[in-house]
């Protein structure tokens, strides 16, 4: 029994069952397949997270975000006072998370590419774009740059999915995707 020392002191010389050997081979090969699938997707797939990131102070990131918002503001979101910003396609766009909002609201064009810069002004936040379900971890002090291409029009929510204190569940932002004019 497995609770006793092996009776055969040379247990490493005991023969193996064929079925077990085959299973080990299958499992090992499957591991290789899964390993190389990740690499393959970097060449063939369209969803790969960039590793482009910079260290940045929260003040500086807020400044850049506010500058973009002032320049490209098209309206306000309902009566919330949050600007809706429509930067030109192909440019660098900014959004920050802070307790407890994603700011500002962005309006993007379908099938156009944007370089989205994300950072937090205080604690860690989770950028969770719904309903498409893309999830990124946002750190204070780090600026993450993701190149995005919205492939559907509509109203998307940015939910916070990293716990950030007692108002966590009220932290919501928005991205509109519209057809290019």
């Amino acid at each position, binding site marked *: *029994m*497995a*609770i*006793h*020392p*092996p*009776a*055969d002191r040379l*247990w*490493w010389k*005991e*023969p*193996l*069952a064929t*079925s*077990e050997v085959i*299973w*080990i081979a299958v499992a090992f090969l499957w*591991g290789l397949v*899964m*390993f190389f*699938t*990740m690499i393959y*997707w970097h060449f063939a*797939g369209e*969803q*790969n*997270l960039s*590793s*482009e990131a910079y260290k940045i102070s929260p003040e500086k990131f807020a400044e850049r975000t506010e500058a973009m918002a002032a320049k490209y503001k098209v309206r306000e979101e*309902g009566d919330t006072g949050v600007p809706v910003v429509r930067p030109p396609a192909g440019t660098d766009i900014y959004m920050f998370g802070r307790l407890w*909002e994603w700011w500002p609201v962005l309006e993007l064009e379908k099938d156009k590419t944007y370089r989205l810069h994300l950072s937090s002004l205080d*604690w*860690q936040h*989770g950028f969770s774009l*719904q*309903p*498409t*379900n*893309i*999830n*990124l*971890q946002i750190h204070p*002090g*780090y600026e*993450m740059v*993701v*190149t995005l*291409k919205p492939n*559907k029009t509509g109203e998307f*929510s940015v*939910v916070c*999915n990293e*716990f950030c204190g*007692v108002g*966590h*569940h*009220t932290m*919501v932002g*928005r991205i509109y995707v519209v057809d290019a004019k």
Partner: protein
Amino acid sequence: MAIFRTCPDTGLKIHSQAEALIKANAVVGIVFLAIGGLFGIAVALTRWPAVHLLDPEWFYLVLTAHGVGVLLFWIIFFEMAILYFASAILLNSRLAVPKIAWGAFALMLAGAILTNIAIFQGDSSVMFTSYVPMKASPNFYLGLILFAVGALIGCFVFFATLVIAKNDKTYEGSVPLVTFGAITAAIIAVFTIASGAIILIPTWLWSLGFISYIDPLMYKIIWWGMGHSSQQINVSAQVAVWYAIAAMVLGAKPLSEKVSRSAFLLYILFLQLASAHHLLVEPGLSSEWKIFNTSYAMYLAVLGSMIHGFSVPGAIEAAQRRRGFTRGVFEWLRKAPWGNPAFSSLFISLVLFGFLGGITGVIMGTEQINLIMHNTLYVPGHFHGTVVAGTTLAFMGITYLVVPLIFRREIWMPRLARWQPYLFGLGAGGISLFMMGAGTLGVPRRHWDITFSDAPLSVDVPGTAFLMMGLNGVFAILAGLGGLAFIINIVGSVLIGKRRDKTVARTNPVVFDGGAAVAGYGAEGTMKVPGTVVLVATFFTAFVLYYYVNWKFLSEVWPLS
């Protein structure tokens, strides 16, 4: 002078101090399971939108207490009991330095209480992960540090016991496979606790104001060196428990000692890389780093688990076939002792861990697929499949053997014990499944209100997500009832169960006595196990299909690079 008794069931010499330490650690562990489990039900009932039990402050507080209480305190106290059992008891030896082992126990208990006090004072609702720069009160970290130091000392008592047993020649040849698994768990525990110390001590000093800044990204990398590796302690301990239950109930022996031990060795070599599983969507980490680490080199630790996934049912099948259940492919399984709670716990734990916890863990840990799962409810769905349906159920199973063998009491309500693993397994399986279902719909984890009723902007949440959260609540209640049935029965057995003397041990044996069917111990060698082949083929098919389904899901989201 060490005092021993001889176990009437196994003939092993049992050191009274080792026995007392096993009892103390197991009992405290089960108390934390009871408390932490209760918090878990409160969490699930709050997340059930139609019930919404707690207000947000209490919810986040209780969620913190739930995570810390069950993931650390329940499991690690119980693992200390397993370490002492696998060393002193199975090796027929005295336990090294029992006084220090009691000191370790006291430190762990003091730490666990201190952290819980900090949480319930209300200023440490920072979740189990306590990501900086969110700050808890200093005692929150201090309690965890004390607990970890105690656990580390316990590991060294375990290692010292191995040395004593070897020197005193209390056993012949190599250590039993179960002890080998426990050694694996203890080695990983040392790495885990070292990571914990490296990050928690500075964080404690930071919370006291002696350090001004902790980098949040660095914190995560090292913290998960503890947070994820501690789950690998659980995996190793749980697999060792699977082998132990199969051995004690059925007299099972591994198909091959060499293969099973090599699989444990793969855990030691590769499991520590898993910190990366939590860092796949962080800023700045390179894809090369992520791919290598998240796959444990090239899925070599997964290979270890897949080997055990064959070897454990294989050992059961081989033992059953030796006893004469040889008809067809599955007679061995049909005629398995399904009414024995230790056995049913083992088998349900094995199946749920593999299908719910294992497959989903690998898929969620795939570099790109993590984009559509990170921090959604899929994550807790996965680890309730591993830690609750897998580890907790396996530990419950062995408790049904520990009570008669170590506490020397009969199980108080045997009929309840027969049902308990099924009820708990059903509940835990449901929790895991429905949380993962909600996660694929984008429902965030650690979130008080998926209706977003207090948020300035509205969010469209699919109706199915509400259904999933409701079902999660229902199955949490079932798991809670299963947990309650376990705790009442074990506490009752320990306090008022019938005493087990030599006569009872003879009339109602707990450990398989071998008999004529099983001659000697050793690997099963080339014994044929067709039923196990069918089982793992089913598992493998599910794995491959579900893996590619998730790539399909990923390919539909916004392109990003």
